[in-house]
C-alpha cells in the first residue's frame, strides 16, 4: 500500500509518501491510523486532531470507515487551500 502525505502532515512525517505492507486484519482507514500510531509516535501528532484530517482512498475523498486493501493508495492531508 502507498500512503501519501501533503502540506504540514508531510513535514511532520518527514516524507511525502511511503510503502507499507498492510497486515491482513486491517480493513479500514481508522484501523490503519491506529496501526501507524503503534509503529511510530511521529504519527501521533498528526492524528491527534483526526477531525481536521482529510482522507483520500485511490484519489477520492473517503472517511475513517472506508474499506481499504493492500493495493490501495491512501492519502492524508489538511483542509485544502488552493484558489
Amino acid at each position: 500500500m502507498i500512503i501519501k502525505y501533503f502540506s504540514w502532515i508531510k513535514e511532520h512525517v518527514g516524507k511525502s509518501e511511503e510503502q507499507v505492507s498492510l497486515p491482513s486484519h486491517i480493513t479500514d482507514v481508522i484501523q490503519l491510523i491506529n496501526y501507524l500510531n503503534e509503529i511510530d509516535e511521529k504519527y501521533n501528532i498528526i492524528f491527534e486532531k483526526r477531525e481536521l484530517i482529510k482522507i483520500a482512498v485511490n484519489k477520492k475523498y473517503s472517511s475513517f470507515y472506508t474499506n481499504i486493501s493492500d493495493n490501495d493508495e491512501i492519502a492524508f492531508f489538511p483542509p485544502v487551500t488552493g484558489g
Partner: protein
Amino acid sequence: MTNNSPQINIKIQNEDFDVSKEIKILQQHNNTGAIVNFVGVVRGYDEKNDQIINSMTLEHYPGMTESEIEKIIVNCFKRWEITCVTVIHRVGNLKPLDQIVFVGVSSKHRQNAFDGCNFIMDWLKTKAPFWKIEENNSEKNWVSFNDSDNEALKKWEK
C-alpha cells in the same frame, strides 16, 4: 464546433496563463454570448498574521486534483446551461501579483455563466487538493483553511 456537449479544459501548471487566449478558446462556439471568468491573484499581504508575503509555494495531489475539478464542473453542468469551462491552476513558487487560478465559463446567457463560475470557484476552494505555504524573510507558514469558504457553499444548497 458541431459538438453540443460542454467542453472541459483543466490544466495544472507552473507557467503563467494568458487570459485573452483562454477567452478566445471559450468564445469559439457560435452560440456563446457570455463569458464570465475569475482570475485569482497572489496577495502581497497576509492579514491574519499581519505581515508581508514575499512569495508562496503551491503543492497539489496530481491525479486527484484533476478528477476533483472535473467532478465540480460536471455538477455545474447539471445545474446550468453551459457551453465550455476552462480551469487553470498554477503550482510551484509564485510571487505577489502573480495570477494563480483561472476559471472561465461560457454560456448562451450571462446569469448561467456568472452562477457557474461562482459555483466552480466555491467548490474548488473547498475540494481541490492544493496547499499553499507563504514565505517571508524569516519564516514559512502553511496557509490554514478559511471557514468562510465552507460558509460560501451554503448558497448552493437550495
